[in-house]
């Protein structure tokens, strides 16, 4: 499939065929930017269960998947949505209630774990984490690890530098690779074969993409291959890694997509309030998410004027002067 010349499909089909119950899934984006939200909502609609989810610092996407009951296990560095939710609400509740198992890493550790996966290595070293509870406390017990061959037998391993005092690093933490069964990222532009261009910060999306067995790319714009090939210095993901391409405008909404639209402060503030209350959260899920057949319908819940305010200014890449209180 990865050498196919046309990978364009529907989100419904891609999620149905690649995101299985209990699978190991990684989603791109960071807190309130470029989360693959259309895909997240489709996963919720298809009522996937038991997902083993990986992210580094993810906010909205992770919180909605947890809130909808799709997630059993989570490996993460940070679950927050910036000022809109310093700690994600449904994440916090699920962990405190013991509804999901969570295993903590630092942001760089998660980045290196995806990078190791992308590089085809079992681990990468870092000095981050030495002496901390991130090493001492495991979220997943040894037995759970043994029974899932998608997990390494150990969380993190501290070693002495085999090169002695080279680089003034007497000790290193080895972080094990992640090779998710599926990664989903949202990008600004892709072509039918799957070549992709991210504008602005790439976060750890490239590493997450290349570490995965299967890669789903949702994109704001489907463009011609020739268009991307005119400036290949600006592309990051070659088609050889890609399984499915789905063009979806507003595909990251309510999170931001640099140079296309900003995050929606109204949505994110409402979400925080809604997420705090069990009943209103269930109503939100039923009406806003399950109640829409697809992302287009979900976006259409907004009036045009509201969406227009979120459109990025071509100069700065965000909605300059947007009311964000």
């Amino acid at each position, binding site marked *: 499939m990865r050498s196919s010349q046309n990978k364009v499909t529907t989100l419904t089909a891609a999620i149905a065929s690649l995101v299985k119950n209990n699978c190991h899934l990684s989603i791109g984006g960071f807190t*309130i930017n470029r989360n693959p939200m259309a895909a997240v909502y489709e996963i919720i609609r298809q009522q996937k269960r038991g997902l083993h989810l990986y992210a580094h610092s993810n906010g909205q996407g992770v919180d909605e998947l947890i809130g909808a009951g799709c997630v059993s296990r989570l490996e993460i560095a940070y679950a927050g949505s910036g*000022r809109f939710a310093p700690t994600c609400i449904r994440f916090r509740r699920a962990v405190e209630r013991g509804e999901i198992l969570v295993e903590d890493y630092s942001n760089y550790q998660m980045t290196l774990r995806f990078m190791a996966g992308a590089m085809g290595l079992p681990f990468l070293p870092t000095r981050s984490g030495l002496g901390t509870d991130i090493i001492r406390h495991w979220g997943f017990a040894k037995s759970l690890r043994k029974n899932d061959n998608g997990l390494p037998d150990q969380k993190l391993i501290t070693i002495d530098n085999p090169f002695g005092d080279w680089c003034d690093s007497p000790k290193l933490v080895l972080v094990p690779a992640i090779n998710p069964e599926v990664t989903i990222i949202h990008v600004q532009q892709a072509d039918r074969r799957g070549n992709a261009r991210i504008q602005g910060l790439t976060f750890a999306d490239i590493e997450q993409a290349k570490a995965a067995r299967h890669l789903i790319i949702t994109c704001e714009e489907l463009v011609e291959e020739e268009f991307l090939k005119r400036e290949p210095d600006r592309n990051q993901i070659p088609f050889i890694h890609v399984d499915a391409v789905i063009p979806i405008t507003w595909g990251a909404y309510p999170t931001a997509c640099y140079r296309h639209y900003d995050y929606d402060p109204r949505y994110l503030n409402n979400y925080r309030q809604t997420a705090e209350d069990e009943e209103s959260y269930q109503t939100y899920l039923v009406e806003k998410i399950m109640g829409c057949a697809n992302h287009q319908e979900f976006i259409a819940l907004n009036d045009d004027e509201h969406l227009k305010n979120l459109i990025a200014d071509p100069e700065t890449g965000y909605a300059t002067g947007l009311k964000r209180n």
Partner: protein
Amino acid sequence: MIKKEEIETGYSRREMMTIAAAREIKNGEIVFCGTGISMLAAMAAKNISAPQSTIFFETGAIDSRLDEVPLAVADSRVMHATAVNGGLAEAFATMQNRFTGSRVVGILGAAQIDIYGNLNSTAIGDYRQPEVRFSGSGGACDVASFVNRTIIFMQHEKRKFVEKLDYFTSPGWIDGPDGRQKIGLGSGGPETVITNLGVLRFAEESKKMYLAACYPGITPEEVQLNTGFTLDLEQAEVFPPPTSTELKILRQRCDPQRLILD
């Protein structure tokens, strides 16, 4: 919403904290910012006393212009007019790098801090089924491990300044002057803790936190009362209040919408 303290002094505690942190930043330094008040402190420093400092985010943005205050480190506002837009891999490598890391000052926050400046931003109670769960390390453990010095923002409460952390997320001085060396970390460590009551630093010989200054109107005893371990109060001075220039720049240039200041 105007708070009582603001009516009395003409500035809020949050403004005082932001300016206190901004004053710690040296010209030419590379400033690692988290979300919220730390970002505002970096913006204030750049606009007031350290114009050649470089603001830098773990998301991969270096030297962001910041025409508007970002509400998260992944906010598109950090991506505009940067020197380079990279990713997390590049950002953390810059801090772990032996030549650039030593010029980075990191600004961090946490849910708990101990006397050696070690931080918890993960959980209260049992790790696997906590009483209170926080966001997790994010880049905090990385920054605290790599960079030359860190500035820490805290709300000054007894339950936050604790004898023993519920979860050890990010390394401070560990357990004393050779603590970091013993566990394999290089030089660096926390330098200043800025709270809503005053400014704390770490004693050279013990690396224990002491009270360096109280904000005008706060007594050292009040600080001790809100601290879960015994503080050396002997060296406490009165912290110089924000100048009108500092306040003006902070309010008008950095956060005119008061998205973070309120």
